[in-house]
């Protein structure tokens, strides 16, 4: 495991300390000791050496850190009181955020207040250390309670009697009267009671739903969507998402709790998470519905709606709303929408590229590295930090960002929560709840807290959003009919009859030409743009935490992202700014020759992979031509797939690997697969390039981020070569005169495609 909150300084020595009911990990290390200006901050925050510098006076010292690894519940509660002396500054946060996995609020409160918080016996508790270095027990208890009330107030929502909160209040009145925690507890109680009176369950989705008013005038969804400007839609979706996300109770996300949600007795478990998912699915359905609902629309009109959603998604990206962004993107990628090939043809090329860029954010490549990285980079930055490879989109983005900056509005970040949920379930699966001797495995909770802390940090960032609900939009949104998966698919088939979408139709071939030229243009622009990953890192100053507490959490987050960057960068697959298109010409390639090659290729074809999904099986079964869909084959592009052969340069040229290419595959992915097949995994993807061998001395180099399926010359043999890139100097020169050739090559390849399909 490599986890983000690693100690930065050198660990000098460590031992395990075992005592009755607990196991500790003791390390000696050189650390920067800081005198926190605010003691509470040290208590509440994570590690002391990560506090913002202005809060501290620092010096280096060897210090002993004693952390509890496992223990009985009693020991874990007791440790709350001693963790500070042990230099385990994160303990309170970790415990409070995760104890619900192994104990109830009542149990912990009883132990804390009745056993360990009994102020008469406190000398005993603190007896291990010299009296002057031991903070006053009263102070310690007060800070624990304050942290609890502040960070995990939901723990005390126990209507109608609020036993835990009342118990706490009583304790505070008796032992620490007039204190801040007492006022806090009192306020919380009143707040809960008021909410109960209002019969408000505290979750926004219902209150949003309530806005839905039956008496509103009948609205046509399509007209209405066009009435709402893209930025308004994105802003309103973000408003709804942020409100729901802020209400997420972090411990609900713990694997042990979230994975129990479908048990019969747990119907109401984790309502705050369900609310965010409900919203996510509603956005997805809204996208699908608005696109499919009216059957009579012209393809151009429907394409306009698709474009609109892509632009809305882009606005969401600027607002750093990764939840709705993902919802929209996955809606557009869903079968019902994605299969509308003839409609997509009318989506402008800039918008199409925008869509591809946005889709790339959620590519599952490298464990969702892109989206995770983005989240970490932008989680606490004031503004989105994005770059587009398309000039038009770039301008648009800059305008929007400038506007944000001019208005001085900071943006929060809404994450897609699902990734966190999976991570937490994985952690829960992988790590034991109890260790030998039946002790609670607290190491597990520390690891879970790392994820929880990220969620909390992002929640606090959401306070920086400054948006007001637009009733008209919200009403419209909740009025959208929600089609089921089946309904949308059959609507989709009505809109574009299934058989029409096969490659043999002349119209779809036209679409290919268009798509191709679009891709080609796009890759040209990519060549001049700066890749996102090379953008300067967002400044840490953007942390929006108001309380000392959240400030300290965010500061460790930033360390996290830095540490991550350090280890991630080498495996990155950056866009190559110095992209090149080498000499290319295919006009010399006679069609007879390629026809021949194509047919021979089919007969002797070894298919290396089982066939990958074709999105429209339904469409195929309707096609009268064959009873079966054409499987991907070598030298022929069947709908979305084909087989290409890739050999490596220094390999005599006769050893090749067949690779299944789908219309979704971009150059880096294809290169990576080829490298894998050629056992070159140890090399970096970005050091290689892929070129189609057109003839003996002509080849077509795939632009570094092109869609290979469309970028390749479908007229020539589907033979490719994988090789190490040449030096930058050579490439630049080649690019200068190669582009027009590629363009004509490609178009020709596509236009004559019809001859090859049967």
């Amino acid at each position, binding site marked *: *495991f490599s986890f983000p909150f690693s100690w930065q300084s050198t660990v000098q020595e460590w031992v395990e300390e075992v005592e009755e009911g607990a196991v500790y990990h003791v390390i000696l290390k050189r650390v920067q000791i800081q005198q926190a200006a605010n003691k509470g901050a040290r208590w509440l925050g994570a590690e002391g050496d990560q506090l913002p510098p202005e809060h501290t006076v620092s010096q280096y010292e060897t210090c002993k850190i004693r952390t509890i690894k496992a223990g009985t519940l009693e020991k874990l509660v007791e440790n709350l009181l001693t963790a500070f002396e042990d230099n385990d500054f994160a303990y309170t946060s970790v415990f409070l955020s995760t104890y619900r996995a192994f104990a109830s609020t009542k149990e912990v409160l009883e132990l804390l207040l009745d056993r360990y918080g009994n102020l008469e016996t406190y000398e005993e508790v603190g007896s291990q250390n010299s009296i002057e270095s031991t903070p006053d027990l009263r102070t310690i208890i007060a800070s624990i309670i304050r942290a609890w009330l502040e960070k995990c107030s939901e723990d005390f929502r126990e209507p109608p009697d609020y036993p835990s909160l009342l118990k706490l209040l009583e304790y505070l009145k008796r032992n620490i009267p007039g204190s801040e925690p007492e006022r806090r507890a009192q306020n919380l109680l009143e707040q809960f009671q008021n909410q109960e009176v209002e019969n408000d369950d505290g979750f926004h989705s219902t209150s949003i739903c309530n806005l839905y008013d039956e008496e509103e005038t009948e609205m046509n969804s399509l007209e209405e969507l066009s009435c709402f400007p893209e930025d308004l839609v994105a802003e309103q979706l973000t408003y709804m998402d942020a409100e729901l996300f802020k209400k997420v109770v972090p411990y609900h996300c713990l*694997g042990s709790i979230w*994975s129990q949600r*479908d*048990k019969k007795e747990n119907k109401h478990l984790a309502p705050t998470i*369900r609310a965010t*998912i409900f919203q*996510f*699915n509603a956005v*997805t359905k809204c996208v699908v519905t608005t696109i499919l609902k009216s059957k009579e629309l012209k393809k151009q009109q429907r394409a306009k709606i698709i474009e609109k959603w892509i632009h809305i998604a882009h606005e969401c990206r600027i607002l750093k709303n990764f939840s709705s962004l*993902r919802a929209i993107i*996955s*809606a557009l990628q*869903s*079968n019902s929408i994605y299969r509308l090939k003839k409609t997509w043809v009318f989506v402008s090329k800039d918008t199409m590229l925008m869509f591809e860029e946005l889709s790339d954010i959620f590519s*599952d490549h*490298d*464990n*969702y*590295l892109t989206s*995770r990285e983005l989240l970490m980079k932008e989680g606490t930055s004031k503004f989105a930090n994005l770059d587009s490879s398309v000039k038009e989109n770039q301008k648009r983005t800059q305008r929007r960002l400038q506007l944000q900056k001019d208005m001085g509005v900071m943006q929060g970040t809404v994450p897609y929560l*699902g*990734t966190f*949920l*999976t*991570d*937490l*379930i*994985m*952690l829960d*699966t*992988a790590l034991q709840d109890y260790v030998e001797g039946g002790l609670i495995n607290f190491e597990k909770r520390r690891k879970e807290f790392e994820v929880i802390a990220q969620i909390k940090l992002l929640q606090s960032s959401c306070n920086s959003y400054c948006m007001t609900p637009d009733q008209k939009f919200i009403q419209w949104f909740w009025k959208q009919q929600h089609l089921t*998966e089946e309904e949308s698919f059959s609507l989709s088939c009505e809109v574009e009859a299934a058989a029409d979408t096969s490659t043999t139709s002349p119209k779809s071939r036209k679409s290919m030409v268009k798509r191709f030229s679009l891709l080609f243009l796009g890759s040209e622009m990519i060549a001049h743009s700066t890749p996102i990953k090379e953008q300067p890192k967002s400044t840490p100053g953007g942390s929006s935490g108001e309380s000392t507490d959240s400030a300290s959490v965010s500061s460790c987050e930033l360390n996290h992202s830095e540490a991550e960057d350090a*280890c991630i960068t080498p495996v990155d697959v950056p866009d190559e700014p110095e992209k090149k298109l080498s000499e290319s010409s295919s006009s010399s390639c006679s069609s007879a020759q390629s026809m021949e090659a194509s047919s021979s290729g*089919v*007969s002797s*074809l*070894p*298919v*290396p*992979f*089982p*066939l990958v*999904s*074709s999105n429209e*099986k339904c469409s*195929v079964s309707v096609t009268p031509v*064959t009873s*079966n*869909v054409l*499987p991907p*084959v070598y030298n022929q592009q069947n709908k979305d797939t084909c087989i290409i052969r890739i050999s490596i340069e220094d390999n005599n040229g006769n*050893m*090749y*690997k*067949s690779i299944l290419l789908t219309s979704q595959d971009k150059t880096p992915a294809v290169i990576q697969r080829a490298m*894998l*097949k*050629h*056992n070159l995994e140890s090399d970096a993807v970005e050091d290689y390039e892929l070129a189609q061998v057109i003839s003996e001395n002509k080849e077509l180099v795939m632009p570094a981020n092109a869609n290979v399926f469309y970028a390749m010359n479908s007229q020539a043999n589907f033979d490719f070569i994988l090789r190490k890139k040449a030096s930058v100097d050579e490439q630049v020169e080649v690019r200068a005169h190669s582009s027009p050739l590629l363009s004509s090559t490609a178009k020709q390849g596509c236009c004559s495609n019809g001859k090859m399909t049967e």
Partner: protein
Amino acid sequence: MAQKATPGTSPEGIRPTYLYKVVLLGSTSVGKSSLAYRYVKNDFKESLPTVGCSFFTQTLNLEVATVKFEIWDTAGQEKYHSVCHLYYRGAHAALLVYDIANKETLNRAKLWLRDLEKEFLPNEIVIALVGNKTDLAAQREVTTEEGEEFARTKNLLFMETSAKSNHQVTDIFMAIAQELLRQEQEKASAPSPLGKSTVDLGESGARTGCC
């Protein structure tokens, strides 16, 4: 021929390497992630990415080939419908997991199968039906026969497992690997990809009526 001529990284000589994406589908708490974790456990530390953990990899060195599994699990994200549907795109094999102590989960597995049937052609993906949690035999709601029968009608691999007691976990993944390789060979030897017959799983030897 071509795909077999892998330059040998293995000491035995020339063996092809295949990479397969395997997805786990099923209701909440049927034990998807436990299965995945149990299967890759020995390599867990190595295979766990530095950030989060959405998939595991496992390499099988078989006699005829090296099979690399990329095992994807969206446990926790079942309720994000569109996301789940997208994630099985491009999969080579799917494990439809249900809990033998919860009949409802088998019904859900059947729905997942319907989704897969929409997305894939019969020969495009190897599907295994997995009845997990045989350690909960006392609370069994789905008989072995029922699972087996359903798998037979739908031409699925079938096995009952227990991630908890490590029962048949490796076996099911091995069965999938063999089935995938068998299909590779079939494709390689087929004179034309169009003339391929359907896979008769009954003869594959991978099916096991267990317990």
